[in-house]
């Protein structure tokens, strides 16, 4: 097994993937998110986004305060479709 440093478990994104993208000039977290699909998997960004923010801060010299957090969306945890449709169904 190779020694990958995983940032996003949902999509197997590594530290190197994020760094490479930043080096190519993409430094907006919203753009990084969409190109690497970070935060778009079933964990909804809970594990990965803080790591991306810290990598971005380190690589660009920006303060974490200045990096906006991608918007949290409904539902904030995955919900089975049948539950949303058949509410009250035991």
């Amino acid at each position, binding site marked *: 097994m190779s020694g990958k440093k995983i940032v996003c478990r949902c999509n197997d994104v590594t530290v190197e993937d994020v760094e490479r993208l930043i080096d190519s000039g993409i430094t907006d977290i919203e753009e990084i998110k969409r190109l690497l699909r970070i935060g778009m998997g079933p964990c909804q960004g809970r594990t990965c986004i803080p790591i991306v923010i810290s990598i971005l801060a380190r690589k660009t010299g920006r303060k974490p305060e200045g990096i906006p*957090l991608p918007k949290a*969306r409904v539902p904030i945890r995955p919900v089975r479709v049948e539950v949303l449709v058949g509410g*009250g169904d*035991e």
Partner: protein
Amino acid sequence: MRLNEHPVLRFEHGREITIYFEGRPIRAYEGETIATALHAAGIRVLNYSPNEKRPRGLFCAIGKCSSCLMVVNGIPNVRTCITLVEDGMRIERQHGRAKLPREAKPPEFRDAKVVTADIVIIGGGPAGLMAAIHAADAGARVVLLDENHMLGGQLVKQTHKFFGKREQFAGVRGVEIARILEEELKKRENIEIFLETSAVGIFQEGDEKLVLAVRKNRELLEFRGRAIVVATGAMEKMIPFENNDLPGIYGAGAIQTLMNTYGVKPGDRVLIVGAGNVGLILAYQLIQAGVEVKAIVEAMPKVGGYFVHAAKVRRLGVPILTRHTILRAEGKEKVERAVVAQLDENWQVTPGTEKTFEVDVIALAVGLRPSIELLHQVGCQIKYVRELGGHVAVRDEWMETTVRGIFIAGDSAGIEEATTAMLEGKIAGIAAALRLGIANESWVKGLETAQRDLDEFRSGPFGRHIADGIRKILAEVRA
């Protein structure tokens, strides 16, 4: 791997049942999660990742990280860390992205169950419980929901005694505080409790706030109220190092859940990353459960948690390696070794200082961050404040966020302690009742007492740091 005796905790198992893992029968107990039962049976690999087919196992144990997805009774993407076992359940490892079953019937469309109250409290940990008790005493009709099957939040996993003053439960173990608060809650007739109920979103519909929630993963509920207290606690941070996704690497909270909630040992030999209070307390809890702790590594030049917690594990033989970091985990399908190394003054690894520990568990206790998803989703102003653990909602002295009627308390308002969470919960509960015009002015006094207690608690070196962070937040409100 199951714990039979423990110096502090007693474990009560449900009825013994059988589940099938890839066809193999496994003993389980009703009331425990699938991941717990598999873990007790020594099964570490729960699925293989979608792109790289990397083995993955339990990591967060609270349904958040997606590392434990499996196919259960033919249905893919089941979070086995929060799904309870049922007799005869068939469980298979999931290999990457899943296919939906080919045959299915469309479900009936039905209205959700509606629950109304004055104040909806999300989270039944120390902050939420205190908010509920005080809001109810102030005259509000309260409904409290919590994801877990028991109240108390993280308190139920804490075997150590709490600090602070006597009226703040100092000298009482976390598990016991949870029991006391639960008893208080149940004495009050104007509090309705919903367990195993997860809030998944907040919608504002005029003056009313709708908290959409799911009970037991199968029932949709609409909680409607005029004020909300969000006391959703915290979640653990993760750090990147080589093979940081290998099964056998857990968040500290996951180990506490396995060990102290379900009575299952996480493994035999553990390396802990992080010597803050969580890492130190975890080390002690592991020793109490009869697990060997090989070492605690800490990148900072000093112990970050309370010295007394460090001294407790040092005298039981656990080395604390300050200025050390974890380089990588090694192992084929699960952790077999951990490699650490020393850091220099510039946080760079000093060559030649690598040390290998033969461990089967790596516990990450590298910090917590507030669970603010609901607050962010509903549109509260969010600000990054390092002292408070990361992104937090901006709030005033009454714990009210920038969305009127939405209050916060506890770790979701900033990482601190159960003691301060309880005081913040008291403030938020009273403040919400005051804002709704339910509580009369005399309640302001109680709120101010709690504020003074907080100030006193935060007057030491640890608390001053927090107070700095809170000042930044309050400056934002005034601006």
